């Protein structure tokens, strides 16, 4: 019997899914090639997504808090905004993190190649290098981690510097006087928040019934209220046409309660979702199957119909989130290494980094309703949280979604300042199959917002210290 040699693997795409896979594969002793167009690993998340937007949202929050400080007897006056320095702060953040990843790749002996990959067959890819030239290499296994890109609505396509997508909006070339955000999903609301804090008059238009479609309405409501104050308008109708004029983009609206049928904006940001990057050259020379909506079809081991090829991250389906991609990447590599593993989380947390933040994990009320699943919901309003009162931010809400029979925590939803950090505890509770009692009996530090998770569990038993409820 021959000794089992370490496989030679290639990963196409250097985002959070791709580099997590590459680094683990290297740690397991595999021969790893990571291919991406950028100078360093990082992908959309680090270059044009999560990270730069969070840097800007932090700034937005500081601006907003300074304005808010008036209520506490502190006045800073109007902020002076140096867009160039702001941009370089953001670029500094991106460079620090991506170059760090580049160094880690080197240290782990991952071969990082800048270029584009196309398939010659199931095991061979041709890499066209950025600087020109190319080579064909054969690998034992290939992981596709090509991610996604902003979706485009053909009727709203307009070649103009006034039209932004999430990528160009993050460049902050200027602060427009008026900005229309098309699409009330998390990307639109996060970027809208940034521009509103910098001084733009922001309007958001969402064609479905409300902001953040899919999220539980009680979580969205506090954000909706705050955005109503922060934004110029929140419109729940559709955009039928855009056209460029001398002084801006003329936008036509249609819908039930349209007040203004047409309006001119300095800039328009289109953020109507993302599309998987599954149109990879030569994919038809493999057995990989692309399903409807463009997602590559994989089994629960992240293996495509072609046994040599795996796919992970945004390109295989919703939710399109970096942390889902990383987990999938690691699972795929472990499967390649011969471990019996599958991607089967009980909860994938989702966070909207607006102010207040919205975060949820596991089962949502909306989903339970759709499935006709019986649940109990325990809610703790932050008005009863001491910490929330000290922050002067009492609009938050923490809720647990529980199985009535076993009292097991199936889902957690939080809206409020720092909800994104708080959701981690909820996710752990779901993954560990914690009961409401477990969380209620775990001592939480006082005074913190994390107490609201414990208190919500107490609400379920009707014994919350800080919230009186008459007996049912």
């Amino acid at each position, binding site marked *: 019997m021959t000794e089992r040699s370490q496989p030679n693997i290639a990963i196409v795409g250097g985002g959070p899914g791709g580099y997590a896979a590459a680094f683990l594969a290297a740690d397991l002793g595999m021969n790893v090639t990571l291919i991406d167009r950028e100078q360093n690993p990082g992908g959309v998340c680090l270059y044009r997504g999560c990270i730069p937007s969070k840097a800007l949202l932090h700034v937005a929050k500081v601006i907003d808090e300074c304005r808010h400080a008036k209520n506490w007897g502190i006045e800073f006056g109007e902020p002076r905004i140096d867009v160039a320095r702001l941009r370089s702060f953001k670029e500094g953040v991106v460079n620090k993190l991506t170059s760090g990843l580049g160094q880690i790749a080197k240290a782990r002996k991952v071969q990082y190649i800048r270029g584009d990959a196309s398939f010659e067959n199931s095991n061979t890819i041709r890499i066209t290098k950025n600087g020109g030239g190319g080579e064909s290499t054969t690998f034992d296994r290939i992981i596709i981690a090509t991610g996604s890109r902003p979706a485009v609505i053909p009727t709203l396509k307009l070649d103009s510097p006034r039209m932004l997508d999430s990528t160009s909006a993050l460049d902050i070339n200027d602060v427009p006087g008026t900005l229309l955000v098309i699409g009330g999903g998390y990307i639109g609301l996060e970027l809208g928040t940034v521009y509103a804090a910098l001084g733009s008059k922001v309007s958001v238009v969402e064609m479905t*019934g*409300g902001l953040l479609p*899919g999220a539980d*309405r*009680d979580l969205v*409501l506090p954000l*909706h209220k705050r955005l109503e104050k922060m934004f110029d308008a929140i419109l729940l109708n559709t955009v039928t046409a855009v056209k460029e004029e001398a002084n801006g983009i003329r936008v036509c609206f249609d819908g039930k309660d349209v007040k203004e049928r047409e309006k001119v904006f300095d800039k328009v940001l289109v953020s109507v979702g993302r599309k998987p990057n599954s149109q990879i050259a030569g994919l038809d020379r493999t057995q990989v199957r692309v399903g*409807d909506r463009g*997602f590559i*079809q*994989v*089994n*629960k*081991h992240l293996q495509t*119909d*072609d*046994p*040599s090829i795996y796919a992970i991250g945004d390109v*295989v*389906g*919703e*939710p399109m989130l970096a942390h*889902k991609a990383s987990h999938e990447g690691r699972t795929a590599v472990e499967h390649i290494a011969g*471990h*019996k*593993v*599958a*991607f*089967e*989380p*009980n*909860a*994938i947390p989702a966070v909207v980094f607006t102010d207040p933040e919205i975060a949820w994990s*596991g*089962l*949502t009320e909306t*989903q339970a*309703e*759709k*499935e*006709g699943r019986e649940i109990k919901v325990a*809610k703790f*309003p932050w*008005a009863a949280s001491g910490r929330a009162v000290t922050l002067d931010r009492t609009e938050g*809400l923490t809720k647990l979604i529980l*199985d009535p029979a*076993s*009292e*097991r925590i*199936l889902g957690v939803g939080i809206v409020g300042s720092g909800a994104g950090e708080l959701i981690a505890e909820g996710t752990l509770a*779901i*993954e*560990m*199959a914690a*009961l409401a*009692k477990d969380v209620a009996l775990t001592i939480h530090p006082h005074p913190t917002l994390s107490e609201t998770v414990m208190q919500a569990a107490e609400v379920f038993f009707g014994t919350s210290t800080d*919230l009186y*409820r*008459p007996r*049912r």
Partner: protein
Amino acid sequence: MTEFKLPELGENIHQGDLVRLMIAPGASIAEGQAVMELETDKAVVEVPSSVSGTIKEVLVKQGEKIKVGQVIFTVENGAGGKRVEAKASSAPAAAPKSEPKPAAPKSEAPPKPAPSAAPKATASAPVVPSESNEVSEFKLPELGENIHQGDLVRLMISPGAQVSEGQPVMELETEKAVVEVPSSLSGIVKGVHVSQGDQIKVGQLIFTLEPGATSQTHSQQPSRAEESHDHARMAFQAAIQSEGKTEEQALPRDQPPTASVATFSMPLHLDRAAGVEHRGPVPAAPHVRRLARELGIDIHSIPGNGPGGRISEADVKLYAKSVIAGAASGAGSAATHLQQPALPDFSKWGKIERVSMRGVRRKTAEHMWEAWSSIPHVTQQDKADITELEQLRTKFAPKAAEAGGKMTVTAIALKVCASALKIFPQFNASIDMEKEEIVYKQFINIGVAVDTDRGLLVPVIRDVDKKNIVELAAELTGLSKKARDKKLSPADMEGGTFTITNLGGIGGTGFSPIVNYPEVAILGLSRSGMEPVWMNNKFEPRMVLPLSLSYDHRLIDGADAARFLRWIAEAFEQPFLLSVQG
């Protein structure tokens, strides 16, 4: 644009194979019109549309496996639902005779009906029920001291829905808490005057009722839409469960017994990640789930001993041990089998194609695995001299033909076996290991394996001992035709006590058939041919039929099997014995 999704098909049926697609983009479709033929484990059914309009896009292909809730096609300028009620109510009548199992409408149950469970509202303060039936407006009642208004967080009613007293109609967020507001009226909602996100004051009009409908207090009835869903689903189940019906009868072409409902709100698992089978989160920590997978055990089948059914590492190990020791008792059948070892990567050696296992094949695979793994098989071989029988057969052939049958060796074998089973009752029995009992059957129903396009099917002929050969020949011919025409009903294949399989038409000198569990024996016939037989002090050319009897050695001993098979061989050799002994 309207989507048509695969409606729920019945209990425990979650998917089917698309055998025939009857629509194409651009074609117009009407409610009730057949969309496709779906092959499930139980039957082939036609799936009727619940929407009307022009088909925009067809999202499935022939040969695909389709799950409940999957989108089949989309419709432009779609209409649907106007005739819903009429159709829905007539549907159960049109449904075939077997009673629809009124499967608890879990999935469609209204999210939070339970009017009895008093709303948790802190302030479900004096909601004064109207004194006369005239009142048809519901206004926001007083919520409690110093609470004058709230934000409408969730609206739980819509026009046309049935609302009953005590049923929550919305969630209101006040300064103090989020409360559910229960209705003080019963009836059908006419108009809703608030919308989600509104700020609502005490006394503000929330909804109005249809005039005259207020008095009826269907306290616990689901809304009308849901009711018609239920009807539709039950009718559909009645059709597909099709016990006692043929596959064709299950859904007659001219009269699809499915009600058409514009929007089937089937349980959809929208937010799931790619490749994740949705079975609900299992109460086990991530490392415990991984351990189970490594051991090849389905974690969903492991009983958890922790609080709330939580499965610990120890539970997994204990379970694995019990499976390996074979001590997992009869309780857990197929689910407890260890997974088969992983397949090698065949594509290393050349091109491969993967095809999904379809209905009959899948069922056969499961059934054979069950039989092979639970029955200790032995096969006994023998030969019967049928020279004289052949002469008789030719002689009686016209008579059988007259009765519409074909005088085949199998038909004669039926009669022979029935006689043998009477004399050797342990071959007409089953074993109940759990109770440690032998079940002797006082009826003789013999299955005959039939090779069809779709695979192996085994129709059963009842009371074989009470029928003569000509009758049996006619019945066998009829059943074989039914099998090949896909007209066998599940009932036609049930209740066998013994099985005959004849491969003689193809060839071969002998084989080891697998016992058709829970029967205990099966007789295989191979090709008969001329052989030299030593008789009367010389070799004579005789027509010889090879016989192969597989049996369950738990119940039947080798000597009994030899005697049984010899008896059968002799019966073939001396056909007149049949009339004497049979």
